[in-house]
């Protein structure tokens, strides 16, 4: 054995010891491995996606013919409230954060996130939010006012009991979790890039995740404020939203949509990252129009905060404002159109090769563009007065969110699945799942545009036969059922491939970015050596540059500068800890208690303070290894 090989073997052993989790349940509870936490996040969101899909099927069956009585109004209202809240707060946003948690360090050639324990805390708190919504549901205390619970309907006068409190506090949970994850992702991308990966050489996926994380940080406080004010109205009789007490019901809507509209782009922009990565790899060329893509993502990130009022055109605001928000909303079509152009142009000018991930991108473009165009229609204030709160809107936002985010997400699953599991998914079954999901979705949701134009409002549990909405509703139900079957085929493929799929190797697709340089599945320490890069597609350029001087025998990360990614210093990366879980439990007790008594905020803060003190108790030592340098 040569000296080099011996050194490599020793380094790997050291790394393995330094980054390994404890075994068993204790390891499960204390791990700060970003891959394990992200996998947990993803499995939880997929399970909830299944539950929300079943709720949707239940509602579709109820609506498949006029005047059905298989669901009463209460059950139906609970179902759509639970479906919407679950999909928006517990599936779409967290799953995108989970993809970032899993991929960002790998794409940066790093061993972990910037704040490993914060990632663990984020998941545990998110899980608290899931239980906050679904445990009461199991007990029959389900929120029943939709995914945006407008006061005064959700106020103390019209919603006695705790249904609305549960919804509002579920939001607090998920938003704290989302803020924690977003801060983590943003800082990781800004400070842990490999040397040489300047901002201008950052893969689009990282740009997308950076922008989505920053948007989350700016948008989410608004909704936490709104729901906290709602809880205050309900718990301690403040009058933020009660007209009789001098409050304003519309204040809630403004705050809610100031979050609610960016929320849509917080879900969509990560999908832009997935699509860019997939298109690049399968077109066998770097993305066409990189700067245009980066600028368009940034433009969407900024514009998204200036058009929340288009959710409120019918509330009777001054018309001058309507015109402004119409123009602002339509402007989004420009960056989105440029992105679509760049992807198609990349396929056009490359040497494209078909595989399921690229198939999903095609399904995404065909479907999402319809959603974008119907979005332009609803952006027009006068036309929106006819369209808002009808099935046209239901069709529109499902085209945007399912077509625009879930399809790319499924493509991303197919694309990175071999990296995560070491095995390839079956292409043949993948195509069947794709055809069923995309076909079923379009059969199911396109008719809803027409239903909306035929006057069918949203959120009705039944409708009279003589309105003539029966046939298209039946079609919508059939299409949705086909899509659900497709979803089951997709999951079956993933499970089957997990045990029986063909071994993938480190780089089955010939990808350009760093995550394909580490083994599949990646070891706990991700990379044997910390890489540095010169170009945006380092693996295609044949770059193999490593940074030495970073400890192998303990957890250490290389921190670089924000703009030019120059190495600055080594940072100790914290190890496994139980305190994130304990802190999350204490926070959970505080949140749950504050539904019942304001004193929970006071007494509940004490255990949180103790847990956080233990979490941050200083244990760090100084770095002892030699100077930083690069080697080939």
């Amino acid at each position: 054995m040569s000296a080099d090989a011996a050194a490599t073997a020793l380094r790997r052993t050291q790394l393995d010891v330094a980054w390994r989790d404890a075994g068993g349940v204790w390891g499960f509870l204390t791990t700060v491995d970003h891959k394990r936490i992200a996998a947990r996040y993803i499995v939880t969101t997929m399970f909830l996606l299944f539950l929300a899909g079943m709720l949707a099927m239940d509602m579709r069956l109820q609506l498949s013919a006029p005047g059905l009585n298989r669901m009463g109004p209460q059950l139906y209202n609970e179902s759509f409230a639970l479906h919407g809240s679950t999909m928006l707060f517990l599936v779409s946003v967290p799953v995108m954060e989970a993809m970032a948690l899993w991929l960002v360090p790998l794409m940066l050639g790093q061993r972990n996130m910037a704040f490993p324990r914060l990632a663990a805390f984020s998941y545990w708190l998110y899980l608290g939010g899931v239980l906050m919504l679904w445990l009461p549901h199991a007990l029959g205390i389900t929120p029943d006012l939709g995914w945006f619970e407008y006061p005064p309907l959700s106020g103390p006068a019209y919603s006695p009991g705790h249904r609305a409190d549960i919804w509002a506090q579920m939001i607090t949970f998920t938003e704290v979790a989302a803020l924690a994850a977003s801060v983590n992702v943003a800082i990781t991308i800004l400070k842990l890039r490999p040397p040489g990966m300047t901002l201008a050489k950052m893969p689009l996926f990282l740009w997308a995740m950076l922008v989505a994380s920053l948007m989350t940080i700016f948008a989410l406080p608004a909704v936490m404020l709104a729901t906290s004010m709602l809880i205050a109205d309900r718990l301690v009789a403040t009058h933020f939203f009660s007209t009789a007490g001098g409050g304003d019901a519309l204040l809630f809507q403004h705050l809610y949509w100031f979050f609610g509209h960016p929320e849509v782009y917080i879900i969509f922009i990560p999908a832009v990252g997935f699509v860019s990565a997939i298109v690049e790899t399968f077109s066998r060329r770097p993305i066409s129009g990189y700067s245009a893509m980066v600028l368009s993502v940034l433009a969407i990130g900024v514009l998204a905060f200036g058009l929340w009022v288009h959710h409120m055109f019918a509330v009777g605001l001054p018309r001058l404002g309507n015109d402004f928000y119409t123009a602002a909303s339509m402007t989004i079509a420009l960056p989105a159109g440029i992105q679509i152009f760049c992807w198609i142009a990349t396929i056009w000018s490359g040497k494209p090769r078909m595989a399921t991930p690229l198939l999903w991108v095609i399904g995404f473009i065909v479907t999402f563009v319809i959603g974008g165009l119907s979005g332009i229609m609803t952006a027009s204030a006068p036309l929106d007065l006819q369209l808002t709160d009808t099935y046209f809107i239901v069709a529109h936002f499902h085209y945007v969110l399912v077509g625009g985010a879930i399809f790319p997400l499924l493509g991303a699953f197919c694309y990175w699945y071999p990296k995560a599991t070491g095995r390839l998914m079956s292409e043949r079954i993948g195509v069947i799942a794709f055809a069923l999901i995309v076909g079923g979705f379009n059969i199911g949701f396109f008719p809803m545009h027409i239903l909306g134009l035929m006057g069918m409002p949203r959120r009705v549990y039944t409708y009279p036969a003589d309105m003539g909405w029966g046939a298209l509703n039946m079609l919508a139900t059939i299409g949705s059922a086909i899509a659900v079957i497709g979803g089951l085929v997709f999951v079956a493929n993933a499970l089957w491939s997990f045990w029986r799929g063909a071994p993938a190797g480190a780089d089955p697709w010939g990808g350009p970015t760093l995550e394909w340089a580490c083994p599949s599945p990646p070891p706990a320490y991700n990379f044997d050596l910390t890489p540095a890069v010169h170009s945006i597609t380092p693996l295609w350029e044949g770059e193999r540059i490593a940074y030495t001087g970073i400890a192998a025998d303990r957890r250490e990360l290389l921190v670089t500068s924000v703009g030019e990614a120059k190495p600055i210093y080594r940072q100790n990366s914290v190890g496994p800890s139980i305190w994130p879980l304990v802190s999350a439990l204490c926070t959970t007790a505080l949140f749950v208690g504050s539904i019942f008594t304001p004193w929970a905020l006071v007494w509940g803060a004490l255990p949180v303070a103790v847990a956080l003190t233990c979490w941050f108790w200083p244990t760090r030592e100084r770095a002892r290894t030699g100077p930083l340098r690069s080697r080939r």
Partner: protein
Amino acid sequence: MIRSRFALACLFALASCSGIQTPLAPAGEQAASQYSLFVLMLWVCGFVYVLVLGFLALAVSRVMRGAAADPVLDAPDRGLHRSLWVWAGIILIGLSVLAGGSFLVDRSLAAAQAREALEVRVTAHQWWWRIAYRDPATGGWVETANELHLPAGRTARIALGSADVIHSFWVPNVAGKMDVIPGRANAIDVTPHRLGWFRGQCAEFCGTQHAKMAFDVKVDTPAEFAAWLAAQARPAAALADTVAARGMQVVTQGQCAACHVVRGTAAAGRAGPDLTHVGTRRSIAAGLLPMNRGNLQGWIAQPQALKPGTMMPTVTLEPADADAAAHYLETLK
């Protein structure tokens, strides 16, 4: 225009749509301008969609089979960059046309306010509509419920108030919707021009029975409207027979009177719909059932079965009394 009418007819036939609650069959000035904007949008967006699909199809047709080729690292971008500018130009022109059209339609919706308008007050309740007109004879308010009459060719300013939570007033054939928000004085101007029956429905989720909060809309000739309003302003009709007399006793001296008013009798409750001329209406319980004696009886006996969650309590009556009450209400023309 003729072609689009034809396409519309085909669409309705295909879907057996009733055409009484749809923005696609405008019966008012506001709905007509919104419809024309929709047609413009459809053309522009359809054109763009076809462009995108065509471009995508051409790109995908270049997909190769077999093993992955070596990456193209120096792919020429210049031609593509030029076409990116062209594409951005197409988008900008399309958006300008649509934003301009949208602006003009918004102006036209606002323009109605300048004219002399009929004053109508609509108050939304969970889950029905209180409707009041100014009586031209006395200047007082005349109340009815769940049935809006409008004269053709005249702008009506409908002042919208809420008794409880947020609702949304929507008669798609006549105009777009306007939210009804407690604490806010919203109003919507509508100028119907086609005679006939239409249907409106609450469009903002307002609780358990949001689905069953509809109302009928009748566009009358001005003469018909004046006659109808004069009839509505009169107190309740005289008793037709002895059964009706028994029914009147049940309604005006029993539990019904706690919530309902029948002008000219002892019944003066305010919580529920005005029943003074309930017999003239087309439907009962906010568009739930056609108006007839049997449905009235069913509604009185089992409101929670027909509209679970409704504020109307179950009133236990002897069968003969229930029949008499239904008969009495039916005769309140």
